[in-house]
């Protein structure tokens, strides 16, 4: 009996396990998921939690709800991978042999990486919303906050869901407006990149949004420290941005098991081939989702598309066939812009987000790179789709793992 061990039972690990379970004969292959966390979080909900637009209980379900009998789930933490002897060591001291290993351990925030971020102001006037606890603490804070300088800040890239901080700024604008507090809140968006929009088509089409929503922007800001006493963030070149409320996206790191096993890049992400998702040195190690270093977004849609292709590749590997180079970096993300509207983007390694119709070319009903109510309804419906279709390893009608060029306006800019 061959053993497939998947580290991480989040979106990517769970979907992959279910695809493999459907494909492989159960008497020949044993699939084991390893994850220390008992809850499966609906992470897109963390953006809405602080604004009271989703209830906390709607943001999680037990992991066991999504793992069929026949797939083993170990609620434990993997501490070290020994690729040369194909073995994992768990926190409980147990060793596990694997024939195929999949690293799906995701990413987590590491506020301790920035001096002062975990200082006396942490979760008093310095918050994150990339963790359930952080989003809940911020929900309490916003319910009573009477206004001042709100700074929405990205520490460094890459981060999970790169558009979430921008969405947070947009939703905050609408939230305070609806509360009658907008004139008392000054919103500043602080990014280490050269702009809120760094791709030409998105910048041309959406560049006006920040000004329209009266959101100030500070670019090229590489944070050196959070000055808790002075209530300001300071960059390496001495720029200071004062805050009354700092909502930051701390450094995102991969799981320690990757770095501790000597397999990680500077951020502890696992380098794999960007098209096959296979490790270059150890062909029986694969990875998907936020845990990889592949140059596409860290997003649930990516894990979804990867899971289908990776299940096929792992099956091919087990049968002694060459793996396919068929993951194109496809990502598909809603971007909430407030007031019941949203944008939708669909892109891959080669094609930046452009205008068009989705998922049915020429029809829609959703519009790419354009603010519409239908896109927002799509995002809301996604909550149900996530729990009832995606985690079960089902496809969404008309949405293929590889990006479709049809329905996209690739060569023209429309405003």
């Amino acid at each position, binding site marked *: 009996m061959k053993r497939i061990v998947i580290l991480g039972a989040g979106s990517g690990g769970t979907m992959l396990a279910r695809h493999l379970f459907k494909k492989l004969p159960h008497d020949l292959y044993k699939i084991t998921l390893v994850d220390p966390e008992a809850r499966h979080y609906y992470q897109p909900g963390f953006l809405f939690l602080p604004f009271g637009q989703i209830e906390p209980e709607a943001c999680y379900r037990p992991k066991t709800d999504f793992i069929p009998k026949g797939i083993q789930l170990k609620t434990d933490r993997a501490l070290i991978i020994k690729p040369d002897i194909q073995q994992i060591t768990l926190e409980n001291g147990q060793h596990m042999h694997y024939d195929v290993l999949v690293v799906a351990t995701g990413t987590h925030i590491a506020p301790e990486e920035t001096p002062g971020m975990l200082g006396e102001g942490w979760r008093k006037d310095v918050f994150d919303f990339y963790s359930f606890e952080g989003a809940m603490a911020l929900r309490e804070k916003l319910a009573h906050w009477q206004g001042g300088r709100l700074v929405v800040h990205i520490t460094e890239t890459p981060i999970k869901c790169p*558009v979430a901080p921008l969405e947070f700024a947009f939703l905050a604008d609408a939230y305070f407006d609806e509360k009658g507090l907008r004139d008392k809140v000054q919103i500043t968006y602080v990014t*280490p990149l050269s702009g809120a929009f*760094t791709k030409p088509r998105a910048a041309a089409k959406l560049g006006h949004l920040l000004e329209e929503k009266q959101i100030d922007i500070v670019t090229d800001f590489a944070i050196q420290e959070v000055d808790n006493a002075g209530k300001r963030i300071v960059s390496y070149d001495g720029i200071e941005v004062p805050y009354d409320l700092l909502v930051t996206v701390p450094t995102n790191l991969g799981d320690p098991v990757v770095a501790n096993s000597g397999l990680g890049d500077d951020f502890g992400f696992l380098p794999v081939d960007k098209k096959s998702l296979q490790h270059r040195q150890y062909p029986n190690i694969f990875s998907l989702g936020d845990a990889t270093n592949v140059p596409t977004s860290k997003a649930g849609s990516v894990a979804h598309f990867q899971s289908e292709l990776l299940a096929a590749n792992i099956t091919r590997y087990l049968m002694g066939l060459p793996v396919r180079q068929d993951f194109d970096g496809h990502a598909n993300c809603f971007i909430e812009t407030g007031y019941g509207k949203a944008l939708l983007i669909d892109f891959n390694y080669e094609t930046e987000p452009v205008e068009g119709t989705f998922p049915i070319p020429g029809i829609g009903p959703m519009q790419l790179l354009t603010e519409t109510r239908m896109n927002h309804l799509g995002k809301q419906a996604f909550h149900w789709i996530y729990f009832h279709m995606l985690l079960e390893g089902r496809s969404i009608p008309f949405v293929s793992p590889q990006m479709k060029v049809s329905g996209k306006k690739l060569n023209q800019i429309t405003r």
Partner: protein
Amino acid sequence: MEKIIAGVTVDVNAEGYLTQISQWNENIASAIAVEEEVGPLGPKHWEVLKYLRDQQSRGTALSIRGIGKSGVVDIKTFYELFPNGPLKKASKIAGIPKPASCI
């Protein structure tokens, strides 16, 4: 689009970044450095540029953290070498794409 830099015709994008990593040479780097007001390139600049090109050829995403950990230069010095947005300027001079988000 095409642009003549240091007497050579190269392909660049709308922001002036080289789109063909192989068209780069040291004269082109020096010319872009002057244009970007980084000034004449010293030995430390060249070390950083070489590191960035190495990282790029390995498919590693560029980050301030990566540079700080590289042992080539600390972050403070990186800012002194390439003032006002060091990553975007250094990558332009190194002839590689600037760090970007998905949109």
